């Protein structure tokens, strides 16, 4: 099945810094989503982005489907951005989403 790799596995930032999280996948996809899991465990959908670029406030995401990667940008990071960021993809056909192992982000004041 399709493989998903996220990098880096862990990231520590000073408040106000910018960061880029990467998601590589092994095959063509028809669905790609980014999620944030906050320190209390709640999973929030950030973007549905199988291709192209989207922005939502300080967060933006870009997926280059032909090169099999997606990037999540966090600008002017805040302590509330801390948590784990997951990328999930669906390959061709009617297959379920496959999640990466996540990037754990810690933003310190």
């Amino acid at each position, binding site marked *: 099945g399709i493989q998903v790799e996220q990098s880096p596995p862990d990231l520590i930032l000073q408040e106000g810094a910018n960061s880029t999280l990467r998601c590589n996948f092994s095959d063509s996809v*028809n*669905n790609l*989503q980014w*999620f944030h899991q906050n320190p209390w*465990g*709640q*999973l*929030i*959908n950030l973007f*549905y982005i*199988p291709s192209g670029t989207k922005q939502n406030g300080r967060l933006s995401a870009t997926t280059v489907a032909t090169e099999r990667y997606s990037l999540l940008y966090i600008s002017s990071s805040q302590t509330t951005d801390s948590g784990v960021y*997951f990328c*999930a993809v*669906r390959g061709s056909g*009617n297959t*379920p*989403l496959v*999640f*990466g*192992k*996540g990037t754990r982000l810690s933003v310190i004041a």
Partner: protein
Amino acid sequence: DAGITQSPRHKVTETGTPVTLRCHQTENHRYMYWYRQDPGHGLRLIHYSYGVKDTDKGEVSDGYSVSRSKTEDFLLTLESATSSQTSVYFCAISESEGLGSDTQYFGPGTRLTVL
């Protein structure tokens, strides 16, 4: 926020006992999913449903069964719980499998401990 609740939120049980977790949605979405989350593994799909009485297996379905008798409820059953099933279980829903409409929304999770 999508209207998804899970019950119970926490449960401690003993090896060999049956356990049922419930997911309830108020969004009338067609698809429902059960995942487990374990350190080092991210989220892994257990079972999913694409309609009432329509279910299919996911990546880690052994030891689990599901049922969906109503659109709004999706039950996950551990027939005989084992310590390896200690985990955090998440339910998710999506409207459909179509482009853009299969964004997944997650419930708050259930922490299950099997002693």
